[in-house]
């Protein structure tokens, strides 16, 4: 039982489930408290120790099914039937060839019921990042690796046939069929693992679908279709909103706003001096929210949303401990300094005029995320909210959503604001459903009413 569990753990680890030794020990000791021969109890003990969040459960279930059902690693099932004999012969023959590369070996092991190496290979492919900065852009490297595995799988399939063909004396037709069937099933399963990346069950995802009507006409016009006068009107509304929010925020903290003596802390310090308040401690205005890192897609129509978002974020800077902002199309650029040197509206105008970003390049979210991860990941910490403002239309480039997953692991929350209304999210080259799996919150944000809803929630 312990051995079996350990083998299973190696598979899970190969599939990126982080399981510590302590957890393995816990699991083994708990197995002695239940009846491990009842599958639901056995599985439950494994799951509550190896998948410590709902997000990891789907991955766990996949591995559990593979290991204990597909692979029949269950020790009780070591029966000696004629086909297992033949399959063993075939595998021996396959392995004899010592020019096998790692992938072929992994596949042979997989057929023999030892899936770990293959899972590792597949995981490597799934998490493969595109090369940055190449003259000719392509998103083919992951596809190429996949193709290679598929070819190998087909090769083995034909080897099975050949083996059985050479062997007709020893094996009758029915048995042959059974063997081909068994091995092909297993190979199909290997193919399935390659092609179906499991998406985490993002049950905690907050999806905002409806919005309040704060303003009747102007509130509902998509940002991208605003005329010049309407833009001014929106700015006006934003100014008022910012003022209102600031007032609420200061009111809420008026008791503790800057300049007031913190009696408790002062007294506490005074203990050192036999009660004489030598050090006077003042209250800092508590910063409500941690840091904000905003990634803004500035291609095409998305910019019109991003600009208002930046406008609002920087107008409310005081409410956060820090605001950093980046813009991207396919390259990513830090624009935080614009807001240090200019007032908010000018800064927003200047970003469009003075940055060297290529606005006409095809948008590539995967690459932009990768740039961010490689150069700016240190900006993310457990007190940071990552805001992504974009339509997730990535021109069919490799979405590299696992990079987003890594970013999520570093920060407090990931919120995606999509200027498109929700019904368009799945259409065309939109990767919204891919990225959604790694967000804490997604919401359409393409007009003033939606923007107001979001900002009020963020601040209050």
């Amino acid at each position, binding site marked *: 039982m312990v051995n079996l569990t350990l083998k299973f753990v190696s598979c899970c680890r190969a599939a990126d489930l*982080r399981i*510590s030794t*302590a*957890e393995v020990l*816990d699991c083994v*000791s*708990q197995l002695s*408290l*239940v009846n491990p021969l009842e599958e*639901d*109890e056995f599985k*439950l*003990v494994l*799951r*509550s*120790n190896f*998948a*410590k*969040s*709902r*997000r990891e*459960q789907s991955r766990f279930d996949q591995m559990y099914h593979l290991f204990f059902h597909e692979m029949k690693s269950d020790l009780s099932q070591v029966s000696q039937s004629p086909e297992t004999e033949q399959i063993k012969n075939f595998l021996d023959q396959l392995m004899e060839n010592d020019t096998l590369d790692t992938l072929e070996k992994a596949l042979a092991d997989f057929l023999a019921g030892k899936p770990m190496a293959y899972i590792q290979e597949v995981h490597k492919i799934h998490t493969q990042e595109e090369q940055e900065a190449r003259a000719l852009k392509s998103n083919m490297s992951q596809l190429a690796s996949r193709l290679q595995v598929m070819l190998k799988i087909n090769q083995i399939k034909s080897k099975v046939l050949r083996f059985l063909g050479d062997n007709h004396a020893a094996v009758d037709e029915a048995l042959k069929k059974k063997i081909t069937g068994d091995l092909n099933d297993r190979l199909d399963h290997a193919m399935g693992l390659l092609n179906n990346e499991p998406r985490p069950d993002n*049950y*905690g995802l907050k*999806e*905002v*679908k*409806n919005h309040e009507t704060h303003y009747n006409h102007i509130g509902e016009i998509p940002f991208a279709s605003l005329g010049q006068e309407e833009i001014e009107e929106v700015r006006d509304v934003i100014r008022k909103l910012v003022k209102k929010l600031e007032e609420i925020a200061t009111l809420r903290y008026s008791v503790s706003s800057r300049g007031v003596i913190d*009696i*408790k802390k002062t*007294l*506490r310090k*005074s*203990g050192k001096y*036999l*009660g004489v308040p030598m050090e006077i401690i003042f209250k800092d205005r*508590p910063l*409500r929210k941690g840091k904000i890192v905003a990634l803004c897609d500035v291609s095409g129509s998305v910019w019109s949303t991003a600009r208002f978002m930046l406008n609002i974020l920087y107008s409310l800077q005081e409410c956060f401990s820090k605001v950093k902002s980046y813009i991207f199309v396919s390259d990513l650029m830090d624009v935080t300094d614009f807001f240090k040197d200019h007032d908010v509206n000018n800064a927003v105008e200047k970003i469009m005029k003075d940055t060297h970003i290529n606005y006409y390049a095809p948008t590539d979210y995967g690459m932009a995320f990768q740039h961010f991860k490689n150069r700016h990941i240190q900006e993310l*910490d*457990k*007190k940071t909210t990552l805001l992504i403002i974009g339509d997730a239309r990535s021109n069919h480039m490799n979405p590299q959503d696992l990079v987003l997953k890594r970013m*999520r*692991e570093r920060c*407090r*929350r990931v919120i995606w604001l999509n200027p498109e209304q929700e019904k368009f999210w799945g259409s065309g080259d939109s990767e919204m459903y891919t990225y959604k799996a790694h967000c*804490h919150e997604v919401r359409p944000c393409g007009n003033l009413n939606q923007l107001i809803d979001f900002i009020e929630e963020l601040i209050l």
Partner: protein
Amino acid sequence: MAGREGILGAYVERPAKHYNAAYGTFYDAIFFINSYGKAPMDFKSVLDVQERLEGVQYISSKEISTVVFLAQATKKPILVEGPAGVGKTELAKSVAKCLDREMIRMQCYEGLDESKALYEWEYAKQLLYTQMVKEKIHDVISETATLKEAVDQIADHEDAFFSERFIQTRPLLQAIRSEKPVVLLIDEVDKSDPEFEAFLLELLSDFQVSIPEIGTIKAVTHPFVVLTSNNYRDMSDALKRRCIHLYIDYPAIETEMHIVKMKLPGMDEALLARLVSMVARIRDLDLKKRPCISETLDWARSLMVLQIDELSAESVAQTLNTICKHKSDYEIVKKNILNVIKQG
């Protein structure tokens, strides 16, 4: 330990029995007999958990009972995840009832810090003490010859200033110091800050905490710990490693019927079945806030009060506000009403 306890007990908000050592032993003896006689003992098996939880009106699945049993047997905290209102908090309360333990609840929020979770100095008392010291300081140093001696003398007394007698316990310290084991509910731990989470780690792994001015305080008894999370943010691996994980989903139709029947025994069976399956269908709609178990109960109650025994489009619309708290959700359900009320 006993001496310390005495000091702490005398100054901290505690039941009166602790003001006098003699009383203390008297009461303790009674508690001892009590727990011996009634024997609200540990859970003996998964089935035992299930039955005893049902005894206190909590309907638990096999999964829930198993995890509770394992957690108790291995003295590990449970980390419970699940949508709002599926009974996460209720589970901790019910376990406390079964085990006849006190439940101490620690609600987490942004900005929660040790002084609110663990302990706080009692400033008023410290201030009084300071005054006293000022008056007495002459006596203390009257015997001393040199300035250095005087300073040393004062320093000896200074320690008393930050001693346990000036500590005001908050939930976590209370849970740790309790002589009788408690159930500690750390609710919505996902709302807390990372610093607080790090601090919880020490508590959950060794069941001890360090107070800089005093030293380490070790748990006298082992609390049964339940942490709940609504997935506002992801918890750290280190925290997860220390817990057994449990995900509670919306209950199956039969389970939810069971719950409602238990809490509202008078309800007509057929009506109840209709109601619960309608709630399940409403949960499948794209709502801001899905109705939870307590809203099913509210709905059932209002049907009983209004003596409605037929769930038609009109009667549903009329009572819908008990389960849809948002106007937009209300509209969505109304739009899908035919689908919601359809039979079978």
